C-alpha cells in the first residue's frame, strides 16, 4: 500500500470506477476523480496530487490538451502522467509522447499492467523523457 494520491481523469464514470478499483487491488487506494481536463485542472489546484492517469477523448478539454496545460504550468510540470485510452495507432502514441506523457496504455488493461506501468514511471520519474 502506498499513500501516493492519484488523479484519475476520464469522462466515463464506469472507467473511473474500474481504474479506482484496479488501483486499490494493486496497492494504490488514495485516488480522486475528474470528468475531463478542465475539471482535472481545478482538482489539481485543490488536492495534493502525486500522479495523474488520464484518458484522451473527453468533452470540454481532452486529455492531450490537459497534458499540455499541466506541462506548461511550472507548479505541476513534473507530475508523472500515464495515459489510458482506446486510441491505439502509432501516430496517437507518438503524439501523446510528444506532449510529454510518461507512459501509455491502450484499453483494455489489467490491474497488473497498470501496476507495472505506474511502478516503471515512478522508477524513472524523470518527466522529460521525450
Amino acid at each position: 500500500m502506498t499513500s501516493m494520491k492519484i488523479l484519475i481523469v476520464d469522462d466515463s464514470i464506469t472507467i473511473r470506477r474500474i481504474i479506482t478499483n484496479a488501483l486499490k487491488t494493486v496497492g494504490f487506494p488514495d485516488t480522486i476523480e475528474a470528468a475531463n481536463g478542465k475539471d482535472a485542472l481545478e482538482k489539481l489546484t485543490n488536492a495534493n496530487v502525486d500522479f495523474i492517469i488520464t484518458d484522451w477523448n473527453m468533452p470540454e478539454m481532452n486529455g492531450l490538451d490537459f497534458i499540455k496545460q499541466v506541462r506548461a504550468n511550472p507548479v505541476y510540470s513534473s507530475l508523472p502522467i500515464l495515459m489510458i485510452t482506446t486510441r491505439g495507432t502509432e501516430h496517437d502514441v507518438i503524439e501523446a509522447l510528444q506532449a510529454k506523457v510518461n507512459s501509455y496504455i491502450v484499453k483494455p488493461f489489467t490491474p497488473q499492467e497498470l501496476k507495472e506501468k505506474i511502478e516503471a514511471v515512478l522508477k524513472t520519474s524523470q518527466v522529460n523523457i521525450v
Partner: protein
Amino acid sequence: MNQQEVDGILQKAAELKVFCEYGQRTVPVLDEIASFVREISPAIEDLRAVVEVSMVNIPKAANQLGRVTQATEQASTDILNTLDRMVATLDKVIGSVATGMISSDLGAATKKMAAIVKTLVDKSGWDDDIVKLAEAWDMHLQSLRMSGSTSNLEKLLKELQNDCTEIMMALQVQDITQQHIGAVMGTIQAVAEGLQKLTTGFFSTNEKDNVPSPPITIPVQPELENVGEAERKKMVESLLSKARAGQL
C-alpha cells in the same frame, strides 16, 4: 446596290449557313438531353422519396444507438455496484476466516466443550485430567484453525474476489464500444447532413431553401489500427522505449 453591299449580304448569308449547320448538329444533342431528362425524372422522384424516408430514419437510428450506449452504461454501473458489494462482503468473510470464526459448527462445539469443562471443574475442581482435557481441546482448536479446510476456504474466497476484479475489468468493453458507437454516430451525422444538403439544394423548388448549408463537422473519433491487442501493446512499448532513449 453597290459591290460593298453585295459582299455584306453574302457574308451574312455565309454566317447564316454556318449557324444553320451548327443548329443541325446541336438539335439531336438537345433532343438526347431532353430524352435523358425524361428518363431520369422518375428515378429522381424515387430518390427524393428515399431521401425523405432516410431523413426520418437516420435520426431515429442515431437515437437508438444513443439509447444502446445509455443502456450499457446503466448496466455497467449496476454490475459495478453489485461487484462492489460482493467484494466488501468477501472482505468481511475472508477476515472472519482468518480469525478462525467462520465455522458456526466450530463455534457451537467450542461453547459446548467449554460448558462441559466448567461442569467438571465445578464438580471436582481443576484436577490433572481436566487440565489435560482443556489443553488437548485447545490444541485441537488451533489445529482446526490452521487446518487445510480453513485455509482452502480463504484461498477460495480470495479467488472469488479476483474473479470479481476480472468481471470489473471486463466492463471496460462498455467504454470501448461506446467510443466505437460514437464514431458510427459521427458518420451517420455526416450522411444526414449530406442528405439535408441534397434535399434543400437539389430537390427543393423553394428559393429560400437554397441557402448554403453549414459545413459538416464530423467529430474526431479514435481509430484503432487493424492489429491485435498484443501487437498494439508491443508497438506502444517499442515507442515508449524509443522515447526514453531520446530516439523519438
